[in-house]
């Protein structure tokens, strides 16, 4: 998207400059984009700066506002066990959810891409849970996970396994949350499916002529060709993991024993339960910086493992298999 931009800008300049001066004097484009400019200032940039400012204040929703410098950040790191607890829970959730989410979405996309008949029906089945609201999803899973009457423990009992009371078990509640989140992976699967459809068939043909089996083809053709899509989905998953709030609020309320007390929930409670607006803003900025850092690190690492086809075309001598391993830069 970014690359095609300068070209179209050039075209615009050629065909539009004279007329623009004559008719609208140059104000017209700003009038058209005005809604966005206004919304950006009032609903994005303003709040963004304001939240940074109030993070240096003791700012209750009613009462005296007081500048405390880095006080919020200091007490967050040194004086608030819930901060570390919730941060740890979110990291644990992310460590489970991100790789599983990628694996499940990619696995389903590969199955759908086998060009079997009826794949549209299967695609719909895998995508349907992503269509309904997070509240509906939480209600359904709270019933599935019910320790005494849930369908999951019934299925396990068929195999002779006595299932736990999933959502009230400190060991299993976070895992249960991960599985429920995986159920809504549909859009990621569609992105992978589109990526798979973009891989030229002849790459697989030449790989199989070279004697590569299914597994070898997966690691030597599919993974490198799909690596830009994997990068995109990796970053989206990380951001989603850090923002997970609906499920925690509705499935467990953060319990049992704070085992599912996500960072987003900690932030939410500081703001809307305890009305510590300044403190919660500091929490939010910390999360923002962590997510930015993680995104940056993933991007940095991507130079080593993401393979862009465009770069290969520039260096035709690297068309051998080693080039396909992603060392094209």
């Amino acid at each position, binding site marked *: 998207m970014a690359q095609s931009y300068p070209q179209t800008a050039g075209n615009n300049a050629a065909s539009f400059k004279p007329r623009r001066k004559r008719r609208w004097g140059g104000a017209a*484009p700003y009038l058209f984009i005005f809604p966005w400019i206004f919304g950006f200032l009032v609903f994005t940039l303003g709040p963004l700066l304001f939240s940074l400012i109030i993070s240096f204040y003791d700012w209750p929703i009613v009462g005296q506002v007081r500048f405390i410098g880095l006080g919020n950040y200091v007490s967050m790191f040194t004086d608030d066990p819930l901060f570390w607890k919730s941060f740890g829970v979110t990291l644990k959730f992310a460590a489970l959810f991100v790789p599983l989410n990628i694996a499940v979405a990619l696995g389903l996309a590969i199955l759908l891409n086998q060009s079997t008949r009826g794949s549209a029906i299967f695609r719909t089945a895998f995508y349907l849970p992503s269509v309904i609201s997070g509240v509906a999803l939480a*209600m*359904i899973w709270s019933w599935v996970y019910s320790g005494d009457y849930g369908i999951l423990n019934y299925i396990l009992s068929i195999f002779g396994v006595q299932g736990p009371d999933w959502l009230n078990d400190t060991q299993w509640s976070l895992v249960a949350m991960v599985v429920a989140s995986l159920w809504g992976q549909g859009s990621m699967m569609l992105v992978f499916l589109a990526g798979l459809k973009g891989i030229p068939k002849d790459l697989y043909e030449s790989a199989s002529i070279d004697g590569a089996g299914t597994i070898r083809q997966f690691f030597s053709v599919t993974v490198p060709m799909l690596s830009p899509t994997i990068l995109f989905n990796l970053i989206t998953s990380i951001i989603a993991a850090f923002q997970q709030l609906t499920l925690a609020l509705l499935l467990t309320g953060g319990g049992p024993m704070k085992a599912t007390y996500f960072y987003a929930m900690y932030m939410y409670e500081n703001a809307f339960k305890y009305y510590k607006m300044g403190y919660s803003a500091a929490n939010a900025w910390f999360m923002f910086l962590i997510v930015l850092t993680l995104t940056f690190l993933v991007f940095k690492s991507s130079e080593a493992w993401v393979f862009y086809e465009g770069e290969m075309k520039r260096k035709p001598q690297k068309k051998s298999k080693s080039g396909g391993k992603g060392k094209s830069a």
Partner: protein
Amino acid sequence: MKRSVVYALLIFCSLLFAAPLFWAVTTALKSQSELYLFPPKWIPSVWKFSNFADAWTIQPFNLFLKNTVIVTLLSTLGQLVSCTLVAYGFARFEFKGRNTLFLVVLATMMIPWEVTMIPQYMEFNYLGWINTLKPLIVPSWFGSAYFIFLLRQFILTLPRELDEAATIDGASKLGVLVRIIVPLMGPSLILVSVFQVMSCWNDYLGPLIFLNDQSKYTLTLGLSQFKGMFGVDMQSIMAITCLISIPPLAVFFFAQRYIVGGIATTGIKG
């Protein structure tokens, strides 16, 4: 992979994905006596369709439905109007700072909602909009980055000669947009509507933060308050869950072609 293995895996996974939905629907149809059994019954012996009507009257769900429809319609209309104007501005004009501004549009997609949530709440509180539907509607009238991006990409594919011909015929810039561009934007406007309707209908955190009074609740908020209420049984919860999932499911089936294409090309769910 062998075809039979692929089919077996596909069927197995579809069952895994469909089972919770199926379980929700059959629970909604169960009578009280079959609700809490172990081993549970997949299929109720008597299908109690009256559960739906009964559950609907436990809380004022008609009111919640009205609120949800108001929010969904007005915010979708807002997105369509504002994003079309802005996308046209970015796609068809050459002006100072355009490239920078467009990069800013894209960058705003990266900002987590949590960071701007508190000041927005304080803003709406200052305006006296807390506990009204306005915070859920008004921001939609000022565009959203993703939809602006999507519509701009679409307008760029339309031949510029059409604009020029209309301009020669004396149409203004706005006239070109309304009479030439918008009629050609059908598919992309449908996609924006579908994404916005779904995300608005399904939204939970917005209503949760901005609404306090039951008379202002949306359906998702009403459903979330249902759990743990005295005298509300699982079949009622599942009945409401099923009912409020029907519109997004219907929209999905109606517009599946657009949705699959839209997500595949941009990677983002509304």
